[in-house]
């Protein structure tokens, strides 16, 4: 069991170091975030919102049920590292480990993830690196370099908008399941596949636009509604997307008889909020898991949701005409807004789940009902 593995380190940019077992070839740096879901490692790793992040799982044993290409949320693995206590690795089944290794994602096991999580909780999200390292000193040196490079690379002016790195680079059309259903334009900030599936199940035709697409191009396609997807990074850096959404909102106000109902999810929610004049801020350590309670004031119910976000909308910054429709009951943060005049609704959580509970998928039905036909 031991012996054959090589030891490695997870090192945070504040100097905290964790020793464990290193699996893989390359060292990587990224923002270190933790997720409390019990299951769904494959969905998370393929979720573009985890772009450039090292994912720490609080559930200790990972990879238990193998892999399944059907549950991929995109065509790539986006995480920059996978950290857990124990990972399935036997002659009978080591599919998950192999998949990560083939994708050049470094994996650390044997990490005291509880201590790591408590640290992130109290100190806030940090950058870190997973390195092999002969000894601690060398590991630190390598890690610091990697972290610096990664930060520089990911935060430089032309790379700051992460949605551009993960979204579709060209327009893509998909047929929906409902011939008489609406045409829906999707502004792709790094969409999870299941958002597209949920939409496809309710529309006749869907066109997916890259995140930098112009409002005019979208409107030229003459959609009945627009969906803003999830995506990675700081919404404040998504300038093109915000501009586009602002123009779409203006269209709705100017042409109430031809409004295109807008529905935003996660990054889509943050971009919409900014377009409406709101401000976003970075949460101390984010919300990532499958157990976050939401009070839905629109539908008058409470449900569990899947969440994955590091930024949030500041309610004080929102214009008074914007209504806070959803509240996170754990910390009372804004989890959804709507603005009657500009015909829009957005939520901070993931009604498409994958992983996580399905109750909030009713919001897709609600969305479709709001579409002017």
């Amino acid at each position, binding site marked *: 069991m031991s012996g054959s593995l090589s030891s490695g380190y997870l090192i945070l940019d504040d100097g905290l170091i964790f020793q464990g077992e290193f699996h893989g070839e390359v060292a990587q740096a990224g923002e270190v975030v933790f997720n409390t879901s019990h299951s769904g490692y494959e969905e998370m790793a393929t979720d573009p919102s985890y772009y450039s992040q090292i994912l720490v799982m609080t*559930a200790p044993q990972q990879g238990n049920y193998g892999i399944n290409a059907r549950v991929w949320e995109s065509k790539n693995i986006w995480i920059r590292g996978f950290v857990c206590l124990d990972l399935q690795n036997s002659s009978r089944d080591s599919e998950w480990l192999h998949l990560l290794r083939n994708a050049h994602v470094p994996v650390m096991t044997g990490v005291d993830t509880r201590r790591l999580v408590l640290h992130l909780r109290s100190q806030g999200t940090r950058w870190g690196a997973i390195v092999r390292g002969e000894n601690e000193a060398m590991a630190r040196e390598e890690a610091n370099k990697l972290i610096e490079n990664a930060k520089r690379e990911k935060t430089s002016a032309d790379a700051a908008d992460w949605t551009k790195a993960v979204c579709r680079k060209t327009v893509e059309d998909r047929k929906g399941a409902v011939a008489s259903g609406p045409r829906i334009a999707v502004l792709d900030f790094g969409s999870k596949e299941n958002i597209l599936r949920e939409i496809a199940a309710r529309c006749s035709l869907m066109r997916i636009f890259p995140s930098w697409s112009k409002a005019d191009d979208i409107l030229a396609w003459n959609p009945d509604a627009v969906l803003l997807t999830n995506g990675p990074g700081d919404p404040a850096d998504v300038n093109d997307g915000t501009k586009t959404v602002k123009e779409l909102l203006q269209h709705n106000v100017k042409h109430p008889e031809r409004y295109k109902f807008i529905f935003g999810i996660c990054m889509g929610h943050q971009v919409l909020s900014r377009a409406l004049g709101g401000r976003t801020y970075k949460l101390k350590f984010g919300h990532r898991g499958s157990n976050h309670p939401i009070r839905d004031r629109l539908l008058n119910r409470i*449900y569990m949701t899947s969440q994955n976000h590091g930024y949030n909308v500041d309610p004080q910054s929102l214009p008074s005409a914007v209504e806070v429709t959803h509240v996170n009951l754990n910390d009372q943060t804004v989890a959804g807004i709507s603005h009657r005049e500009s015909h829009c609704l957005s939520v901070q959580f993931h009604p498409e789940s994958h992983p996580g509970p399905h109750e909030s998928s009713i919001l897709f039905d609600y969305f479709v009902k709001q579409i002017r036909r």
Partner: protein
Amino acid sequence: MNRACAYKKVVILGSGPIVIGQACEFDYSGTQACKALMREGLEVVLINSNPATIMTDPEIATRVYLEPLKEEFVRPILEKEKPDALIPTLGGQTALNLGLALEKSGILKKLGIEMLGAKSDVIRAAEDRERFCRILDSVGAKYPHSKMVRSFDEGMAVADEMGLPLVLRPNFTLGGGGGGIAFSLEEYKTKISLALHESPSHEVLVEESILGWKEFELEVMRDKRGTFVVICSIENFDPCGVHTGDSITVAPQQTLSDEAYQAMRDEACKIVNAVGVETGGANIQFAVHQETGERYVIEMNPRVSRSSALASKATGFPIAKIAALLAVGYTLDEIQNDITKTTPSCYEPALDYVVTKIPRFAFEKFPGSKNVLTTQMKSVGEVMAIGRTFKESIQKAVLALERDPRGFAPVVTDEQRLAIPNSERIFHIVQALRDGRSVDEIYKLTQITPWFLEQLQQLTQFEAVIRAERELTQELILEAKRIGFSDAAIASLRELNESDVRAERKRRGIRPAFLQVDTCAGEFQSETPYFYSTYWSSPAVHSSDKAIVILGSGANRIGQGIEFDYSCVRSVRRFRTEGFHVIMVNSNPETVSTDYDTSNELFFEPLTHEHVSEVLAYVQPLGFVAQLGGQTPIQLAPQLVEDGFQLMGSSLNAIDLAEDRGRFNEICRSFGVAIPKSGLAANIADAREIVKTVSYPVLCRPSYVLGGRRMEVIENDNELESYFERHSAFISKKSPCLVDEFLERALEVDVDLVCGPDWTVIGGIVEHIEAAGVHSGDSMGVVPPQRLKRETAAKIEELAIGLAQRLEILGFLNLQLAVKNDVVHMLEANPRSSRSVPFLVKATGIPLVDLGALAILGHSKSQVRPERFQWQNTKQVAVKGVVFPFKKFFEADSILGPEMKSTGETMGRGHDYAEAMLKALVASSLTLPQGGEVFLSLRDKDKEELLPLIRELIAMGYTLSATGGTAQFLRSNSVECVEVKKVHEGRPHCVDRIRSGQVAFVINTTSGRRSIEASFGIRRSCIDYSIPCITESDAAQAFLLALQRSRHADYSVEPLGQMQKI
């Protein structure tokens, strides 16, 4: 909080005596619920017949009725109390069935009492299989193909149609009682008749077998607004075919993908809504096909359950408390999460550890019963352990079973033990893996999910590493500890002493960390004082002033159950009141003591020397208390003292004086107290010598036995020979057999007392109904004594006090004595709290456990003022009833003897002995037939004695039947009776008569191995058909008393009085 509560007074129904399938988890749930509602300012009226529960302490509810959970007793309570509502979902199946009966009788409607938690429609929808299946259809859920059968013939037709194997599920029974799997037609015929009889509605669901499918359980909650949460997912290690209560289970589920898990979660939500559960907790069991992933619903319970208690302990989410608050009108978002104190209760706990539960069985107590696990529950208790990985968790759980300090000790495997589920299977699986068998082979034999088998295989592979490595290196020890190996296991693999391994480990600084159970995997700050040990993290420093550690009693087992948890919990409260920081250590998830808000800190750990010692080293208490949790902590005390920890209360020497037979007998002699004559026999030759002076009957038992294991009354030479043959493995020079004089027909009593430095309080004398020879845990008892002479009682008290002082007891002492011809004989002394303590507390109102705590703290006479506590002052008579699990163990004999077999007790309180007796019997679910035939088969020495009783039965209108000898005796005394053949005399014989339903009850007294074996069929048929069968002449007298009293049904129901203040 929204004070939407429309109710001022609610009645909560408890679950009655501890039986298999319904144990102290309902004390835990009920206590939590009562406390929550009391805090809301409601008036809470509690009804429960079990005196050993914490919930029946007067402080827990506004008023407590220790009355039978039967309609005729609950009805007058409702009339007297006039509550607004009744909650039937906290007391298991007993309370649910009683709730239904009350509703059906119209009393609830008449008095305007609302049923909360589950309306009767909901209960029926979940419990009535046909209705339930229709609901499943309506939400598109699949379930095993099945047919409801209402007669034997219908049953045969269904078997024809569906083919075997088939599963039988009688409607409305608890713990799957009367159910099972039939593989052959023969087996099916027997089981279907029994199952039809067992079901109160005579309906049995005959079901397609899903043997070998993976089994899961979801613990869910819903509020009146429809908010739905899954508190915990549980995966069974044992596949379908073994009752979930008998399965090893793991939380959270480990082998389902998110896709499969969420589909299950969706289905659970739909089912709960469709069944109509408006508020509260429910559990739903699922089966998932190993290869195809096809999912079936097995069943649902619309109430708190054994698994909801487990889920509460596994996650930290107090299901019962929340269920109670939901029932009176709150919603989940209005209730704060107790653990984080900042987030609401509408969330799903996230776990960053793995929890394993292992049931504990008692097959050895029931000779003849097969150690085979089926869909009918047979376990008597369970342990739970928490580790960061499954391997750490299961090894800790196995250690918590207190079987072997090495955990998975070697066994000799055989194929049968792998293929057929049994209580030892996990040990055989581990051994088979050690022996080199593959995961695949074992999967084929067991259908246990390969992921689990592989985890076990990794354990055994690491054993080989430990054995092979040249040295015990830092890495090797750390890795071994992380996988959960005990020091003893490592020592045994390296052929070292446990103490050497421990010393080496400590020298290297390898110590456990204690991590918090916080419901949120660390996401939120929380202050919960609930911890488990692991070697996956670095130790921190603990700080607390005035800390006292209390050791609990571990898994419930026959002989050590809820009574000891009562002592633990009650004393925790007292120590806290006295200003101490109380730390509880226990491994039993069913108990109140392992509720995180009982003590200041809870350590959920195996009660082994290693684990307890690490807790003590970590918390550095003033001392630890070992006299509250039964025999388990008493046995740990010497090693812990050796480790340098302070034992509080009676010293090791005092304990040893009481427990060491030689030393104790000497003290008794010096006091001039009679002790039964006895001798020590290393073999049969010695024994033959001894019986020359001790003379028959004698009581034989190997040294170092617990709960009367292998203890037998021997009447003659033949039996003596047989005894030594059968138990030769346990008798040797080193461990000789004790051969004691048996005090035949002696009156036996239990005395419990508490001794401070300069004071004593007698808690009371419990007079046993059955004569000496029946284990004290199995005999009925009464306070105040009815037959004991006043002067003898005084003599016993004087003796007890003197002995306690001589032993230098500080705290509790329990004495068992026998009185024969006015001479008091000392049988046994237990330097600890005992089974009878909670019964005495409830019967007398003396806070004996609190006094015990003060004694342990060394409070003086002037502080305690012991003269205030006089047990004779009690006005009511209290009778202890007993319940047995014979029904669950086919082939087991119900005759009582020196080996304890009962699982639980009841209390009957009345103005007089007869009323108390009646209630105790009814509460123990004995029926009192108002007429019909009494079948008698008596041993010679009882015939004369029972003649007046028999005449009285005739006078009351009963008819008699009897076997040859008894019939002849009756006729010669001009008593009319029908003579019936004994079993060996040909058919139709007496057992046929019983099985055909012609007999109302049976009195069958017998002794001697051969006649006991010959009359086995009589007792067994009574068990199978729930016919009262009295096996002791004294018990027969008591039964008659109850029968007479039952003829005028003017029962008094009175709440328990307040306990005396300290």
